[in-house]
C-alpha cells in the first residue's frame, strides 16, 4: 500500500515534466545502449576469431624452416630448406606431447579438368594431415596408407576447387583431374570451411598423399613444413618447447647457434587475437561506462534543480503529513524511475543498434544476457546513487522553511 502510494506520487510528479524526464533519460539511454551494442560487437568479433581458430585446428603446432643467414645477410622465414622427413619422424617418435605428425610439402599448380582449369595450392601430407588441420570429408574418403606407400595418384579436393572445375552441383568423386599434366583421381570432397580469420579461402585446396607430391611433382628432399597436433590445448607450449629441443638435436646445433627453424602454434595467434579483442572490449566498455556515468550526473543535476524548484511542494507535502522518509523515497523513486526506464529503453535501442551493425556492417554480434543484466543493474544503481543526495537534501528540509521558500 505504502509502496504503491509512493509509486503513484512519483508517477504523478514525473508525468508533469515529461520533456525534462525524457531529456534526462537520454543520458542513461545512450549510456546503456552503447554498453549493450559495444559489448555485443566486441563479443561477436571475439567469438568469430575463436570459431575460425578452431576450424584451423586449435591444437596444431607448425614447424617451418628457419631463415637463411649467410655472411650476415638474413632472409625471411622459410627461405632455407632445413626440414626433412627425418625431422618429422623424430618428432613423431620422441615428442610425448604430440599425437599426430605429418610432413607437409606444397606446390601451387595449374589444375585441369575437362575444359576447365584452376590455379590452386596442392598440399602433400600423410593421412594425419586431415586430423591436424581439422578437415573432414563430405563425400568420398581420404587416402589410405596404401596410397601413401604406392604414391598413388589420388587426391581430395576442396569445395572451391570442385566448383571451379566441375560446377557447383556436380559430385567430383571418381572424376579425374590433371595436376601439372599428371592425372589424379578425386577420391574425396572436403566439407566446406569458409574463410579463415585472415580472409583466406580454406576450401581452395587440393590434398594428395605426401609421397605422391614429393616424388611425382617435386622431386625434392626438403619439406615446406611439419604439422603436428598437441595432446591438448594446455600442452601446446610444452609441445613447442620439446619440438624445439628435438629439432636442435636433429640439426646438430650448438648452444651458440640460432634456431634454423620456427615453431608456431595456432594458440599463439589465437591468444594474440583474443587479447586484442579483449582490449577492445574493455575499451568499449570503458567508453560506455563513462557515458553511463555522465548520464548519472545528468540525473543528479536535474534532481537537484527539481528539489530546489519544488521546495514549496515539499513543504506542502510535509505540512499534510509526509515524513522525511516519504520525501526521500519520492525523490529516489523518481530518479530510479528515470534511470530504470532509461535503462530499459537503452537495452532495446542497444539491441537494435547491435542487430543493425550485424546486418549492415557484416560484423558478427553476440548479445549476451550478462551485458543486459549488467547494464540494467548499473543504470539502476546510478539512479539510486545519484538520486540519493538530492533526495536527502529534500527530506531534511524544515517544513516551515520549505513552505516559505520563494
Amino acid at each position, binding site marked *: 500500500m505504502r509502496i504503491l502510494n509512493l509509486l503513484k506520487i512519483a508517477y504523478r510528479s514525473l508525468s508533469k515534466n515529461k520533456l525534462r524526464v525524457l531529456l534526462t533519460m537520454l543520458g542513461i539511454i545512450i549510456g546503456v545502449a552503447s554498453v549493450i551494442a559495444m559489448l555485443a560487437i566486441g563479443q561477436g568479433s571475439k567469438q568469430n576469431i575463436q570459431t575460425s581458430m578452431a576450424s584451423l585446428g586449435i591444437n596444431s603446432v607448425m614447424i617451418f624452416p628457419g631463415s637463411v643467414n649467410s655472411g650476415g645477410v638474413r632472409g625471411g622465414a622459410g627461405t632455407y630448406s632445413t626440414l626433412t622427413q627425418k625431422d618429422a619422424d623424430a618428432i613423431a617418435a620422441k615428442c610425448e606431447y604430440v599425437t599426430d605428425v605429418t610432413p607437409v610439402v606444397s606446390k601451387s599448380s595449374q589444375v585441369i579438368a575437362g575444359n576447365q582449369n584452376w590455379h590452386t595450392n596442392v598440399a602433400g601430407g600423410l593421412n594425419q594431415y586431415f586430423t591436424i588441420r581439422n578437415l573432414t570429408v563430405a563425400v568420398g574418403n581420404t587416402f589410405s596408407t596404401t596410397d601413401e606407400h604406392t604414391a598413388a595418384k589420388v587426391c581430395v579436393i576442396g569445395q572451391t576447387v570442385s566448383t571451379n572445375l566441375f560446377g557447383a552441383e556436380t559430385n567430383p568423386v571418381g572424376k579425374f583431374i590433371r595436376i601439372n599434366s599428371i592425372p589424379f583421381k578425386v577420391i574425396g570432397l572436403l566439407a566446406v570451411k569458409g574463410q579463415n580469420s585472415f580472409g583466406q579461402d580454406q576450401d581452395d585446396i587440393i590434398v594428395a598423399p605426401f609421397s605422391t607430391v614429393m616424388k611425382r611433382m617435386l622431386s625434392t628432399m626438403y619439406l615446406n613444413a611439419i604439422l603436428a597436433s598437441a595432446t591438448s590445448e594446455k600442452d601446446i607450449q610444452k609441445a613447442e618447447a620439446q619440438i624445439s629441443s628435438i629439432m636442435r638435436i636433429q640439426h646438430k646445433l650448438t648452444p651458440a647457434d640460432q634456431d634454423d627453424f620456427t615453431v608456431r602454434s595456432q594458440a599463439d595467434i589465437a591468444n594474440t587475437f583474443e587479447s586484442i579483442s579483449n582490449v577492445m572490449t574493455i575499451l568499449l566498455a570503458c567508453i560506455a561506462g563513462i557515458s553511463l556515468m555522465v548520464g548519472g550526473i545528468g540525473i543528479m543535476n536535474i534532481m537537484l534543480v527539481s528539489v530546489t524548484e519544488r521546495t514549496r511542494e515539499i513543504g506542502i507535502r510535509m505540512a*499534510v503529513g509526509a515524513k522525511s522518509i516519504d520525501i526521500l523515497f519520492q525523490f529516489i523513486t523518481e530518479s530510479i524511475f528515470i534511470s530504470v526506464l532509461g535503462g530499459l529503453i537503452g537495452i532495446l535501442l542497444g539491441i537494435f543498434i547491435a542487430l543493425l551493425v550485424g546486418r549492415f556492417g557484416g560484423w558478427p554480434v553476440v548479445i549476451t544476457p550478462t551485458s543486459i543484466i549488467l547494464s540494467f543493474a548499473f543504470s539502476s544503481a546510478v539512479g539510486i546513487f545519484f538520486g540519493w543526495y538530492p533526495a536527502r537534501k529534500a527530506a531534511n528540509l*524544515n517544513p516551515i522553511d520549505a513552505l516559505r521558500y520563494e
Partner: protein
Amino acid sequence: MAESILIDVRNMQKTYKLGDMEVHALRDVSLTINKGEFVAIMGPSGSGKSTFMNIIGCLDYHPANGEYFLDGENVFKMNKDQLAELRNRKIGFIFQSFNILARTSAIENVELPMLYNSGVTAKERKERALAALKSVGLADRADHMPNQLSGGQQQRVAIARSLVNNPLVIMADEPTGNLDTRSSYEIMEIFQELNDKGITIVMVTHETDIAQFAKTNILFRDGMIVTNVPVAVRKFAKEEIPKLPVLDKNDILT
C-alpha cells in the same frame, strides 16, 4: 473541563539569531484553546503571531522553549516522524497563498494527505476527496487544474484538503489575505459551518472584519499576548454575504 482543552501552551519562548542579534519572537506565551473554539489571532507584523502558529501547527522543527500539548500529546517530546503523523491525523492547514500543488487537479490535491495515510484504500481516497470537495461546493470542479480556478476556489480546494483526514483543528494563516471581500466572506461561511460541526479553528488574520467572524480574538504584540477576549458583536457570514454589493454577474453564480 480538562478533557475539552485541545491546545495547551505553557511558557512558550522562541528566539531567532540574526547574525549577532537575538530576536525574541515569542517571550513567554501561555494559552489554552478549548475544543470547538474559533479563535482569531491578530497583531501587527513582527508581533510573533505567525511564529506561534507555526509552532502550534508543528511545522517548525527548530526547538522552542516551554511546553505544548495538543489533544493531550506532548508535542515538544516528539520526533519528526511523530510530528508528521500528528499533522496528518489531527491538523488541517490553510495558507494565505493557498499552497496547492500546481499542475495537479483539484481532486488530486485533496487526495494528497491520504497518500501519506497508509490506512486509506484508493477507492476510499477518491470517495473522501470528492465528498470533501462537495462540502466546499466544488464537486463539479474536481478535475480542474489550479490555474483554471479563481483564488476563492483555490482556497476552497485547500480547505477540502485540510478536511479530508477529519482533523481536530484547522489552522489557517491569513486565509483571506489574497482574496476579495466576497470570496473572503465565503471562506468564513465555510469556517463557521465547520466550527458548528465541532471542528476547532485557529486563524491568523490582520483584518478586523474577518476576525469578527471568530468567537474569540487574541491580540499579539512584541511576542506576547496582550488581550484574549470573546468577540462582542459576532458576524455571521450567512447574514453578511447578501448585504455585499453585487460587483459582477459571476458573484451571484458562485
